[in-house]
C-alpha cells in the first residue's frame, strides 16, 4: 500500500485527478432524508412502542451509512469489519439487561404494595 501511495504522489505532480464525490453526496441525501422523515414522524405520530421502534430502526440505518460509507468500513478487510461489529454484542446485552432492570425499579417504586 505504501508503494501505491508514493506512485500516486509522483503522478499527482503532473496532474490532479478529478474528484469522485457521487457516493458521498448520495450518502448525504440519504442521511438528510431520514432525518427529515424523523421530524415528520415526531410531529404527526402519537407516542408509543411503534413510534419508538421506527426511530430506533431509522437511527440504525443512519449509523450504517455513516460507518459504511463515511468511515469507509465497507471497503476494509472482512476481518476488520467483524472485529469492530462483533464486540457491539456487549452493547446489545447491556441494553436488554439495564432496561429490564429499569422496569423492575419502576415496579418496585410505584407498585410496591
Amino acid at each position, binding site marked *: 500500500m505504501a508503494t501505491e501511495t508514493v506512485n*500516486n504522489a509522483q503522478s499527482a505532480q503532473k496532474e490532479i485527478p478529478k474528484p469522485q464525490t457521487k457516493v458521498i453526496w448520495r450518502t*448525504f441525501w440519504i*442521511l438528510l432524508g431520514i432525518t427529515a422523515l*424523523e421530524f415528520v414522524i415526531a410531529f404527526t405520530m402519537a407516542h408509543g412502542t411503534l413510534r419508538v421502534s421506527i426511530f430506533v430502526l431509522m*437511527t440504525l440505518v*443512519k449509523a450504517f451509512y455513516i460507518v459504511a460509507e463515511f468511515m469507509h468500513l465497507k471497503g476494509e478487510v472482512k476481518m476488520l469489519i467483524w472485529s469492530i461489529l462483533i464486540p457491539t454484542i456487549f452493547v446489545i446485552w447491556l441494553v436488554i439487561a439495564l*432496561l429490564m432492570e429499569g422496569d423492575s425499579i*419502576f415496579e418496585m417504586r410505584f407498585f410496591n404494595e
Partner: protein
Amino acid sequence: MATVATQEISSKKLWGGGMEPMKASYGKLMMWFFLLSDAFTFSALLITYGLNRFGADAYDPKQHGAEFKMSTDYWPVPEHIFDAVPFFHGVSMPLVFVGIMTFILIMSSVTMVLAVEAGHRMDRNDVEKWMLWTILGGITFLGCQAWEWSHFIHGTDTPTISRVFVNGQWTTKEIFGANLIENQYGPPLFADLFFFITGFHGTHVFSGVLLNILIFYNTTMGVYERRGHYEMVEKVGLYWHFVDLVWVFVFTFFYLV
C-alpha cells in the same frame, strides 16, 4: 495465514514492524479500536439514561393532564423541553434548534469525507478548503451547544413549583432552570444525564476541532505532501465521523424518543 507470511518474509522483517494486520496501518487500526472503546463509553451513558427513564414515572396525558406541564415528579416529553431557538424568545418551536445542530454536524461530516477524498488524490488545495469548512462546522456546532446549555441552565420565564422537604416539613419551592441538584424540566436525573451526555459529546467535538486544526496546519505546511500520503486526514476523519455517529444516537434517544 501465518504460515504463508513466514514463508514469504524473513522472521527479522516479520517481527521488526512494517507488517499491516488486516491491511490497515497501525494508526488506522488503533483509531478503530479506540473508537470501539469510546462507543462503549457512550453506550453506557445512553443506556443509563434508558435505565433511569424506565425506572421513573413518565408523563401520561390521562394522569397528568392533556396539556404538558413541567414537573419534577415525572419524566418530561423532550419536544416540550427543547423548543427554544435563539432570537425567538418565548416562541415555542419544538426541536427546531436541535434539528439545525444535527444538520450542521452531518454537513461537517460530509466536508470531512470530501477532505479525505481530496487527500487520496493528493490535491492539497482541496484538502485545505474542505478542512476549513469542517473546522467551521465544528465551531458552529459548539457555539449552538453553548447557547443550548446556557438556556437549559437559566430556564424558562415561568418557574416550576416543586415540593421540597425542609427542616422536617413539606413546603413548595420555585425552580428556574437546571443544575446537577435541581431541575425545573423533570426529575434531577434528567438534567444530570443531559449535562453528562451532551457534555461528553461536546468535549469530543471540541477535541475533534483541535485535531482538525492541527491537520489543517500540517496540510498548509506541506507535511503530508512531503510524506507522500494524506492518511492522517483519514485517521482524524474517522474520529470526526464517530462524533457525528454518536450525535445520531444522542439525537434519537435524548430528543426524539
